[in-house]
């Protein structure tokens, strides 16, 4: 065992940090430019194999990049288009679409959730029927992060042969998008599919394997979300400590009050705990699915819980300033809140662990 980053990993962390920091300091952020820079610097290709046109990054490298994303509140659609949809394309062998992502940054988005199913995604009510010309898909998807009118939708749907996966290009007829801003300055979209017709080649993957493919991509993305949250929490604690050491009340910096000191210590404890369970999940990414998914769910449960605590306490320690959205603390709180609700809230993830029964080691 060894938890120290290699030289290459240190270089990667520096590069990603510099790139994202340069966007974080802009008055008006430009997610598209941030995404372009990610492409130019090879971050988009990071988690794909050389054979796929990528750079062979593993879970450690994903953690490094996603922590930087969290630290700088990146608005690039990396979690969605690279870790979730992108890795699904790679696992499903959708080479053409993957090339579009890696070569020109063509954005894809995986639609996991449906109305009335909460965080379950493996038994969609959306149905795809084979037709003479290809497929007809009907159904509804909700809360697709970073999906909009220019994104290719990757859509799971029930087919007569099992779980299908379909690529729906932007502008396809009978696809209705309801795009909403998220509280963290990104956007998410509800999608209605009303007898959408698709050509045969829109189906990717293999109904016998698609569930497992999605599970693997989702687990990888959850690990990425955990890392983004850990990065965001660390930066939020740093901002909070700085504030405590500057803000004066009753003739002293408020950081000298023991009750506030212990609260900050509890935040640090919560963050280190989150980091450790994230590392555990990363170490289990190659394990069989049953063990991997329990590890990932445990990580998200504990990171979620830490994030709610750290986010709320950071606001509390900032007093009125924490409630102003132009001050950075609130932005981090909003980001942590959104990520906490993504892929499964704390109760959901804890229940997944409990259902998995004990630990294998």
């Amino acid at each position: 065992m060894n938890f120290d980053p290699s030289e290459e990993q240190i270089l990667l962390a520096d590069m990603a940090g510099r790139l994202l920091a340069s966007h974080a300091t802009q008055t008006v952020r430009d997610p598209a430019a941030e995404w372009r820079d990610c492409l130019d610097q090879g971050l988009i290709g990071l988690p794909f194999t050389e054979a796929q046109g990528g750079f062979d990054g593993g879970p450690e490298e994903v953690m490094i990049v996603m922590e930087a994303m969290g630290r700088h509140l990146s608005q690039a659609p990396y979690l969605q288009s690279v870790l979730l949809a992108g890795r699904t394309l790679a696992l499903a062998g959708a080479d053409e679409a993957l090339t579009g992502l890696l070569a020109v940054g063509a954005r894809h988005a995986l639609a996991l959730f449906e109305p009335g199913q909460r965080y379950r995604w493996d038994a969609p009510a959306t149905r795809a029927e084979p037709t003479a010309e290809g497929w007809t898909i009907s159904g509804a998807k909700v809360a697709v992060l970073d999906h909009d009118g220019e994104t290719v939708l990757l859509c799971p749907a029930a087919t007569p042969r099992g779980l299908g996966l379909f690529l729906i290009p932007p502008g396809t007829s009978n696809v209705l998008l309801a795009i909403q801003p998220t509280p963290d300055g990104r956007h998410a979209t509800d999608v209605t599919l009303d007898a959408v017709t698709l050509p045969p080649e829109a189906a990717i993957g293999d109904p016998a394997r698609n569930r497992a493919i999605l599970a693997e991509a989702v687990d990888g993305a959850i690990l990425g979300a955990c890392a983004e949250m850990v990065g965001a929490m660390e930066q939020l604690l740093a901002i909070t400590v700085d504030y405590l050491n500057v803000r004066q009340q009753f003739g002293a910096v408020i950081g000298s009050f023991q009750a506030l000191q212990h609260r900050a210590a509890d935040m640090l404890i919560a963050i280190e705990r989150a980091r450790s369970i994230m590392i555990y999940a990363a170490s289990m990414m190659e394990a069989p699915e049953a063990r991997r998914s329990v590890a990932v769910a445990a990580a998200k449960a504990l990171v979620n819980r830490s994030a709610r605590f750290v986010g709320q306490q950071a606001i509390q320690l900032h007093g009125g300033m924490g409630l102003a959205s132009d001050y950075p603390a609130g932005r981090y709180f909003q980001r942590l809140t959104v990520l906490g609700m993504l892929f499964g809230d704390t109760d959901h993830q804890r229940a997944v662990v409990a259902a998995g029964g004990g630990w294998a080691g």
Partner: protein
Amino acid sequence: MELQFTQDEQAFRAEVRNYLLANVPERIRTAVYQEQPLPRAWTVEAQRILNRAGYAVPHWPLEWGGRDWSAVKRAILAEEIDRNAVPKPLAFNVALVGPVIAAFGSEAQKRRFLPAIANLDLWFCQGFSEPNAGSDLASLKTSAVREGDAYRVNGQKIWTTYAHEADWIFCLVRTSQEARKQQGISFLLIDLATPGIEVRPIRSIDGFHHLNEVHFDNVLVSADNLVGEEGKGWDYARYLLGQERTSMGNVGFTRRRLDRVRALAEQASGEHGAQLIDDPAFRRRLTWAEIELKALEITQMRVVASAPVQGIDPKTSILKTEGGELLQRAAELLIDTLGPGALTAGFPEASEDALFDGLDARSGIVSAYFSSRKYSIFGGSNEIQRNILAGSVLRLGRPS
């Protein structure tokens, strides 16, 4: 001891509820239930409906519209207003500036302001906090220098809720630099239309605009608007903070939120076909919140229905602390009913015209989660409340 509501108290509750349901328009109650921001006119409309029935200022002196109802009845009234999603009478008017004017104001001030305050013909906001005087209010710096019949006011207030909706502001200002910090402070009423005042919006983390900075640049205020004596502002502020504790626990509001959580969780799907309410983890959290709310209801009634406690009643700080934390817990439960749908619930931009565009009941829930953080910060943070409990109540740190 009489641990239950009397017949008379129960009848009063029914009477209040009937009046509210019969008189306050559905559109207003729906907006409040969904925690959407109200247009100014609706807030005014609702308070006038309450005022008509004596429900806006029952704790005021009889001659200014008060009623001789017991504190228990006033607590019931406050609870029913909140629980039935009726806008509360504007606290800045009826709970803060009104009682101060009634107690310390001149006859002319009383006549001019009190009826207008009760009926929300004039909307007041509160100018206490400053950038460097939050919890430590005595450090405030906004100055009011006497020049003949007027004061010249310079300085800045911050976190001023609804300053952009208000007509007037009641301020603590420093009228003397020489006295002990607390003694140089006076209580001044200022018309926000006076030249030299600028109100600047602060966007909140809930996406809305409630808060403001108020800047005073050589603002001339008639000395007629000084309340009571110069230099006594600190005492008046303390008096004001000790007023009307019948709704300090926010019991009715939390009750309404938890009722809504239960209603939503009965509609929402859980993960295995069942309703969310049947999910053991969710139900456990809701049950705890309901148990704690029941305890808080009793604590609230213990504050109002027991003989006054000599000195500081510890239950006041407890009501403030627990009331706020429970409201926050209820907001967490609310947002958790949404599941992934919270991401597409919508989130308001700060611009005024977006107030109702694209926002629905779900959006109000997301905003409520964020805005609820204020309950442990404003009005004396929970840390300040715990300092009070430890120092003034338990008398810790004072070796005997």
